[in-house]
């Protein structure tokens, strides 16, 4: 009896490996032969082809200068592609695409004289989908008082604030470029928790990070980049099942060849 159950289990397990739900959901990110060059000898992104659906968190991994930030900026509409095509939730780059995208850049975009509640005010007016309530809850969770000025805040506190602002919007696509580089381990866990809890069910989170070991349990899939190219896209759980390797170990193996 038990043997039978296990046998049935095995065959089902095999079929499920590597498949994620919402396979039929419309793609949130689509790119075709997307290219961007900073200078003739400095390609930012080469022939990126992506079709990424919602309902998952995807990591973006690669050494410095591999094109992660360039890809993020192109998807966020902060850079114009030299060739190729981008669609965000079906929209070409422009106001509609931007309205479905919350972008957290790798460098701070906030002016030092501002207070946290000033930023809330700005976000409320810039983004119709900004949920101030959520942002206020975040501040409590992340232990930041709203009358604090940015100039008095540490790098880690600013990062926490930036994540909170970004995640308090209700959009289809969240682009987080190195969101937790300076956040200490305890706060990092809280930031991750809030990312998991607050992302709308059908949304896509694309998150770049150097801290793969810390962030890998948070990633359904990982995109590996090198020299401006997407060299591999892997399902995290499938890697662990079939290779017996963590994403971080796999990463080291991938880049040992380059």
């Amino acid at each position, binding site marked *: 009896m038990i043997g039978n159950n296990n046998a049935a289990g095995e065959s089902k397990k095999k079929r499920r490996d590597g498949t994620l*739900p919402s396979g039929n959901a419309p793609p949130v990110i689509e790119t075709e032969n997307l290219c961007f060059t900073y200078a003739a000898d400095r390609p930012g992104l080469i022939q990126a082809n992506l079709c990424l659906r919602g309902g998952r968190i995807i990591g973006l991994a690669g050494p410095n200068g591999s094109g992660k930030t360039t890809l993020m900026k192109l998807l966020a509409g902060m850079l114009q592609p030299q060739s190729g095509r981008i669609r965000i939730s079906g929209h070409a780059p422009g106001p509609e695409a931007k309205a479905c995208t919350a972008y957290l850049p790798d460098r701070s975009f906030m002016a030092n004289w501002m207070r946290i509640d000033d930023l809330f005010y700005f976000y409320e007016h810039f983004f119709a989908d900004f949920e101030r309530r959520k942002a206020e809850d975040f501040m409590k969770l992340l232990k930041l008082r709203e009358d604090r000025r940015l100039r008095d805040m540490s790098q880690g506190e600013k990062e926490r604030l930036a994540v909170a602002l970004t995640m308090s919007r209700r959009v289809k696509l969240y682009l987080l470029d190195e969101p937790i580089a300076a956040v200490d381990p305890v706060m990092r866990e809280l930031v*991750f*928790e809030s990312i*998991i809890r607050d992302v709308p069910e059908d949304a896509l989170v694309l998150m770049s990070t150097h801290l793969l070991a810390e962030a890998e*349990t*948070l990633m359904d899939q990982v995109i590996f980049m090198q020299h401006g190219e997407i060299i591999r896209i892997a399902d995290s*759980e499938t890697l*662990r*099942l079939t290779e*017996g390797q963590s994403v971080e170990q796999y990463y080291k193996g991938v880049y040992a060849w380059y």
Partner: protein
Amino acid sequence: MQFDTNRALYLQIAEELRRRIVSGRLKPGDRIMPVRQLAAELGVTPNTLQRAFQELEREDLLYTDRTSGRFVSEDKEKIQNLKRESIMESLDEFITTMLQAGFGPEEILKLVSERLERRMSDDRKQ
């Protein structure tokens, strides 16, 4: 939850949930936290947790009611079986240790029943 990231996370979560059922931390009929909330608590994606749930639903240890959520099975026999299975492993380990230490089957049984009797009388005294 601390994970061994070299092993599939959903299997580790399934193991943890089984442990909680065996230990009684999750009782028959208990309601399981919503996916998002529990996923956040464990630090994994909702998809990974969903996969662990599917695993336990296939084993009939959890069931989903479309309207009211996900619950621990109320099938006492099923849970009893799970307890038995989980205990077998440590029992086998114990037997191996004893055999390797050179004890024969009868000696093992005698030792076990002696210790058991002593434990029971200690418990009664308390």
